[in-house]
C-alpha cells in the first residue's frame, strides 16, 4: 500500500504513525481486551485518555490556568452560534472581521443572537486581502471581536494578532491550530474544527477564558453551554470518544516532532517554497496579496 499526498482542506491527512498506532490498538487497547470506542466514557481508561489529551493541548499551546480546554462536537460551524450564546454577557453587540467565506458564515449565524457589526470586510476585493487595521470600525461596547486567522477557501491568513484592547478576541483557528506557537493569553476564545490539524471531523476544540463563561442566553442548550461542559469535563453527554482518542495520539505525535516551534518551522518552509514556486512562474498565479507578509 502506498499513501497519497492529500491536499484536501479537510478532512485532511493524519500522521501515518498515528494511523498505524490506532490500527494496532483498535481491537485491544493497552491489553484491556476492548477497543477504546467500546469503552464507557465514565470508565477510568477513557477518562485517562481524555485527561491526557487535555493536558497535551495545554502543554503544546501553553494554555494559561485561567482558560478551559473543551472537547465539543459539531465542528467550528456549531461554534458560530454557541459563541454568541455563551459570551454576550448581557451585551447586545459583537464585532466581526470578515476576510473570507467562513467569517461571513459566522456573521450570518451570530445575527440570530445579537446585533452584528461587520467592523471590517475584504469582500469587495473578493477576499484576497486583510483590511488595514486602522480602518477597522470597532465598537468599544462590543461583547467580543471575532475573526478568522486563516480563511481556507480564499486563503487569506493573518500573520499578526489584532491588538484590540479590553474587548475579548475570538478566533476561528480551524486551519492554523497547533501549526505554530501562539500566545493564548491574547484571546478570549480560540476554537477549531478537528478535521484539518487535530483528528477526525466532528470533534471541536474550544479554549475559553474563565471570566467569559457562565452567563449564557436562556435559550442555550446544555450541551452548548461552555460552563456546564467545563464543569462536566466536556461530558455533559457522551463525548466522541474515538475522535478524542485519535486527537490524543496526534498531540503525542506533535510533541515527538518537537512541539509547535518545530512544527512552525516546517510549516513556514512548506508554505515558503510552494509560494516561491508559484510566484517564480508565469504559468501559475497566486490570487492572495502578500500571503507571507508579517504585517
Amino acid at each position, binding site marked *: 500500500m502506498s499513501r497519497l*499526498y492529500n491536499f*484536501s482542506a479537510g478532512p485532511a491527512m493524519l500522521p501515518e504513525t498515528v494511523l498505524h498506532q490506532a490500527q494496532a490498538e483498535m481491537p485491544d487497547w493497552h491489553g484491556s481486551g476492548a477497543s477504546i470506542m467500546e469503552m464507557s466514557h465514565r470508565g477510568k481508561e477513557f477518562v485517562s485518555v481524555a485527561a491526557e489529551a487535555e493536558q497535551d493541548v495545554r502543554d503544546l499551546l501553553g494554555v494559561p490556568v485561567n482558560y478551559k480546554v473543551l472537547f465539543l462536537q459539531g465542528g467550528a460551524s456549531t461554534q458560530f452560534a454557541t459563541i454568541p450564546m455563551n459570551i454576550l454577557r448581557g451585551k447586545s453587540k459583537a464585532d466581526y472581521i470578515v476576510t473570507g*467565506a467562513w467569517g461571513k458564515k459566522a456573521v450570518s449565524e451570530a445575527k440570530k443572537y445579537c446585533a452584528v457589526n461587520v467592523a471590517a470586510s475584504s469582500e469587495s476585493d473578493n477576499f484576497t486581502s486583510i483590511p488595514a487595521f486602522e480602518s477597522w470600525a470597532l465598537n468599544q461596547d462590543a461583547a467580543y471581536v471575532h475573526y478568522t486567522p486563516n480563511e*481556507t*477557501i480564499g486563503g487569506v491568513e493573518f500573520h499578526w494578532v489584532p491588538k484590540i484592547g479590553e474587548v475579548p478576541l475570538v478566533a476561528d483557528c480551524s486551519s492554523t491550530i497547533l501549526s505554530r506557537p501562539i500566545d493564548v493569553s491574547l484571546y478570549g476564545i480560540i476554537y477549531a474544527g478537528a478535521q484539518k490539524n487535530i483528528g477526525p471531523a466532528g470533534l471541536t476544540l474550544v479554549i475559553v477564558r474563565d471570566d467569559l463563561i457562565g452567563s449564557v442566553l436562556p435559550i442555550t442548550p446544555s450541551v452548548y453551554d461552555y460552563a456546564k461542559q467545563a464543569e462536566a469535563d466536556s461530558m455533559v453527554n457522551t463525548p466522541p470518544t474515538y475522535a478524542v482518542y485519535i486527537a490524543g495520539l496526534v498531540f503525542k505525535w506533535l510533541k515527538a516532532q518537537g512541539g509547535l516551534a518545530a512544527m512552525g518551522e516546517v510549516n513556514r518552509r512548506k508554505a515558503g517554497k*510552494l509560494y516561491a514556486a*508559484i510566484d517564480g512562474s*508565469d*504559468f501559475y498565479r497566486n490570487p492572495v496579496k502578500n500571503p507571507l507578509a508579517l504585517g
Partner: protein
Amino acid sequence: MNVPFVLANPDLDKDFLAGATEAGLTTLEGHRSVGGMRASIYNAMPEAGVDALIDFMADFEKRKA
C-alpha cells in the same frame, strides 16, 4: 496553511488535476466558489509531499507551456 493558485490558462485545469492525481497528489481542486487550485498543507502533510507537488508543477509547466 491553504495555498490557492490558478493556472494562467484555465483550459489546462482538468489536465493538471488529472496528472496530479496520477502522480499521487490528490484533492487539489479549489473550492467550488472560487475555482482554480488549492493546496492545503496542514501539519500532517509531509514536506516531501510539498516537494512532490512543486516537482509535478514544474514538470507540468515544461510539458504544457
